[in-house]
């Protein structure tokens, strides 16, 4: 019980506390008037809100499309396409996130929606790949035993394949979230807002304090989400 409180409340609070302490200190002790003007509670909350918006919308879409796509591609009829997709996805992953944003800026223009769309596409990749690889990796004899005992293909998917692939799918989700939080800081370049605003502002006015605030909040967000999902996974997967 005590351990549970520590894991689910204690550690997350410590992480949030560190970020909060840095923000509170910076806002109350600005190095000069420029910092004081650029770094206010109001602004910090706004960029956090924007950032979470980018993250939430793009990740929800990416998870749905990625998992559904991965399942579809793992079906025997589409399996060959799945293997090709796997390669394409791996190549797609090597394109820098900044380039992806720039590309969509030239096609779709500026704004929050364009940023969300770019992040969404970029986050699909690890989820799709891991879902496909996770299902593909379920041992053949397990599937055969299930078929041989008379399980319906749909039941095999939901009762056997997905649960066994679950840890790998979650690993893809975690990768996607960490990448997404980082890439979302770039959304500011195409007017998408988010924590990138702080970082870019800090860069343009040569004030490290502002940059550090943006970077720390982004880092803590990524670490915290990754940690929490990892713990949920530990809870759910008891057999490994």
């Amino acid at each position, binding site marked *: 019980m005590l351990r549970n409180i520590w894991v689910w409340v204690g550690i997350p609070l410590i992480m949030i506390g560190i970020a909060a302490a840095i923000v509170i200190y910076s806002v109350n002790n600005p190095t000069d008037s420029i910092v004081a003007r650029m770094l206010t509670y109001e602004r910090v909350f706004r960029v956090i809100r924007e950032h979470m918006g980018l993250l939430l919308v793009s990740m929800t879409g990416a998870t749905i499309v990625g998992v559904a796509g991965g399942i579809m591609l793992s079906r025997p009829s589409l399996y060959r396409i799945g293997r090709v997709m796997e390669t394409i996805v791996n190549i797609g992953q090597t394109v820098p996130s900044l380039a992806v944003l720039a590309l969509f800026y030239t096609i779709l223009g500026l704004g929050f929606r364009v940023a969300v769309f770019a992040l969404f596409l970029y986050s699909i990749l690890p989820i799709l790949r891991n879902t496909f690889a996770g299902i593909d990796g379920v041992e053949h004899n397990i599937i*055969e035993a299930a*078929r041989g*005992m*008379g399980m*319906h293909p749909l039941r095999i998917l939901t009762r056997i394949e997905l649960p*066994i692939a679950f840890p790998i799918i979650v690993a893809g989700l975690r990768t996607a979230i960490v990448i997404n939080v980082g890439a979302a800081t770039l959304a500011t370049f195409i007017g998408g807002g988010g924590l990138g605003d702080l970082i870019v502002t800090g860069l343009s006015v040569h004030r490290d304090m502002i940059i550090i605030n943006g970077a720390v909040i982004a880092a803590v967000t990524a670490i915290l989400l990754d940690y929490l999902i990892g713990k949920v996974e530990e809870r759910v997967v008891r057999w490994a």
Partner: protein
Amino acid sequence: MIKLEGLTKVFPGHNIPAVKELNLEIKEGDVCVLVGPSGCGKTTTMKMINRLYEPTGGKIYIRGEDALQMDPIKLRLDIGYVIQEIGLFPHMTIEENVATVPNEKQWPKDKTREKVKEVMTLVGLDPDVFKDRYPTALSGGQRQRVGVARAMVSDPPIMLMDEPFGAVDPITRARLQNEFLRIQERMGKTIVFVTHDIDEAIKMSDTIAVMREGELIQHDTPSDLLSAPADEFVSNLVGRNRSIKRLHLIRINEILEDVSRGKPLNEDAKKDDIEKQLAESDIRSVIVVDRDNKLKGVIGVNDLKRKAGEVARDYCQDVSDTITDDATLNDALSVMLEIGEGYVAVVNEDDRYQGTITLGDLLNVVKEDS
């Protein structure tokens, strides 16, 4: 019960059929072992019976019904299936694994739970100990038992077993085989059993179907197969030492009466009695049992000299290994070789002493037969 007529399977992209015009009839309650070198089509044949592979030609009748016209899912639910690597579901507990088919058939929860308990006990796994464990926490032999339990839980009249005892050490394997035969004696299921091990085939089967390159070479009882192999291929498969192979066919309890040896000593027997019995013994040792006829140990000639004491209990030392009376003579031979003695003590299921058999007894059996 199962009838295969002109069964043929050609895999896409292959010119040579994996199974060619196979005709085979398996009677109700029989264990039919398909045996042959790898790639001979035995597994393919089996997988056509529950339609994991669709035949390209021929007919399959199960209890006179055309299996190819039935819904494959329904067909499979009534055929127990055990495969080589067992294929236990790693994310489910043993109980959930065993309950797979009842869950697919949507049995009421209570009935499933009861039946799972029953069948786990039957294969020798204590439900209270094992039901909440995951497969990774089990030994190879225990996993094989779960595999068998899972296939039997809904009491299917037919079972398909693809090298079900393949992945364990020889001793555990012999034990699982004996247990399975004991269960089969009670259940009387119709079983198609695939193996590449001719010894296992001889031991487990009512009939053996020898296959080569997709064709059925001979379908006979093990005893006929040993005495009259159809061609050179079969006789090579059976091997040169056919009389030793006969040891697989005879169970210990069948010969135990004929080799009657002196009564075992009670653990309270006096030294004089021990000496008298030792003098009469042809194995230079006497077996000691307690009041319930449970095996206590053995006294050799040297033990009497080396140790001091008054009654048998003081002299006797533990026996390294015993064998159950439903094991085959071949199992007895392996135990003797294992423990390096010329005899082995036989006990029954409840660990009560039944008698002793020696290498000499085995030789006599082989001699009589040849």
